[in-house]
């Protein structure tokens, strides 16, 4: 991006010879820049490397200053499943993520459509309400909600986590609305002229055009539920069989007096799905993140 000066002479169609001193300086700056990047990259990768290495150590090695496992103890990863109901937690997490993501999509897409492509009274007020809901710290509403779920006797189940998002999720509505706004009105009008109802326009025209945004919303929802800790901690109760991975992992060490090498193996296992997901859907990730930021 620092090649701007070359274009200064573009009117003469002749590339100006860059003086040697300038070239030298540019080279040095580039070397410095790349060295800094490499140093920062090492710092960012180091925690991953240490966590994975520890996950392969024996118990004694994990408590010693050794950095390299000797011998490699792959059985740590199977021990994780013997020490805790890890499989159960994984299934619960998958159920939570699946149901919540489905709910987010089913409920948020129509609301976002109504907020971006339909004209009706009070639309701007409702959008403002979405923004407020987006900003509201969850701690502010959590106590009456907890009381409500406790009275319904649903604490200890997934219901308090899943049901609310089936009524729409402010973040997803916001993100989808921003994207729907970019869909040209002409397409919708063309469909309307052909006698298409709003619902069909939404499912056939808008959803198809907005695939990247919908993919991003689904991805964020899966990630959010997978990482969610505060709400599961409150609502899933004391019985470990009801927990999801995040709650289980946080209690892993204290509950079972497990050694660090096993804890790190569990940590690796929890990071792995997210990282695999990232490499499978890298484009959707980056597009989604930029969409939230740049147009926000």
């Amino acid at each position: 991006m620092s090649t701007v000066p070359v274009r200064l002479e573009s009117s003469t169609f002749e590339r100006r010879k860059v003086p040697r001193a300038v070239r030298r300086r540019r080279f040095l700056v580039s070397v410095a820049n790349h060295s800094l990047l490499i140093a920062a990259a090492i710092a960012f990768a180091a925690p991953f490397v240490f966590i994975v290495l520890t996950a392969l150590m024996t118990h004694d090695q994990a408590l010693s200053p050794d950095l390299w496992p000797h011998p490699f103890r792959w059985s740590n990863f199977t021990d994780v499943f013997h020490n805790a109901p890890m499989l159960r937690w994984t299934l619960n997490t998958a159920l939570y993520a699946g149901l919540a993501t489905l709910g987010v999509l089913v409920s948020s897409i129509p609301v976002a459509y109504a907020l971006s492509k339909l004209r009706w009274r009070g639309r701007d007020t409702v959008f403002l309400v979405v923004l407020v809901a987006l900003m509201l710290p969850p701690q502010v509403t959590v106590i009456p909600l907890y009381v409500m779920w406790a009275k319904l006797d649903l604490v200890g189940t997934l219901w308090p986590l899943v049901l609310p998002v089936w009524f729409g999720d402010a973040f997803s509505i916001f993100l989808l609305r921003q994207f729907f706004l970019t869909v040209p009105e002409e397409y919708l009008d063309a469909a309307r002229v052909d006698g298409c109802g709003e619902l069909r326009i939404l499912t056939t025209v808008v959803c198809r055009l907005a695939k990247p945004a919908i993919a991003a919303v689904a991805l964020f929802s899966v990630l959010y539920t997978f990482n969610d800790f505060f709400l599961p901690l409150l609502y899933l109760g004391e019985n470990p069989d009801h927990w999801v991975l995040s709650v289980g992992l946080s209690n892993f060490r204290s509950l079972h007096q497990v050694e660090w090498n096993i804890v790190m193996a569990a940590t690796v296992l929890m990071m792995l799905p997210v990282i695999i997901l990232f490499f499978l859907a890298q484009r959707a990730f980056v597009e989604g993140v930029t969409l939230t930021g740049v147009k926000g």
Partner: protein
Amino acid sequence: MSPWLVGFTIFVLYPLVMSAYLSFTKYDLLSSPKWVGLANYKYAFTVDPQVWPAVKNTLWFVAVSVPLSVLFAFGIALMLTRARYGGGFFRTVFYLPALAPPVAATLGFVYLLNPVTGPINSGLEKIGLEGPLWFQSPEWSKPSLVLLALWGIGNTMVIFLAAVLDVPKQLYESAELDGAGPWQRMRWVTLPSVSPVILFSVVLGVIYGLQYFTQAYVAASIASGQASAAGEGATNLGYPEDSTLFYPVLLYNWGFRYFQMGYASALAMVLLGVALLVTVVIVRNSKRWVHYGGAVR
């Protein structure tokens, strides 16, 4: 539209109003709420010895981690735009930690920063330095959490990267024609152009900072479990010495450990007030330094 309005009423509006009401009552979930007027607020502001430390810890964390994260993310984004080789590789390396689930990342950091057996202090020892006690010391526990936060700035970085790449090239060219050096171009072209994004990350950072819970909760419970020889499951929130007792942790403690729903609601209302106030102040002030539409004054 209407199902969403129903959901909003049940899951946002009703609890918000209810929270305000409960904050004036004494309510332990077993008997029905009893009206006590302003007693909860009075207790929070004048009696409760943990409120002030929790407020201070939270403000400290926001004041340190938000500017550092923004600076750091911006710096890395700038370096990435100038990288001629391996841009994609570096971007992935910087982004990945943001994906690490908070609980997993916190566990990893508590192990890495273990004062005696962790690799970081072992490494420091090898080069003859004595590492700090990190999560085990009241002075270093919050900085350790800041490190953890800086490790996960990937999302902010990606947003900055997109914003910096979005700056119109002509602006740089005309600035250079006017004789602007690299620093001046940064100050008068890049910074104003990305200022809306800076504002966005600051506001989000502050809002999330005020809600900071998971990492503090997990770090305190793991680090304290590891310090006590008996290693009971009893989690010690705020460990060590209330230094990681953030406001949301305090609220959790009152609401879901002691089940004092009335008092916890009062704490929640104060949080709401502060969050609103801070957001309004930042957005108001921002008019002086945020430029929209690339207009450089």
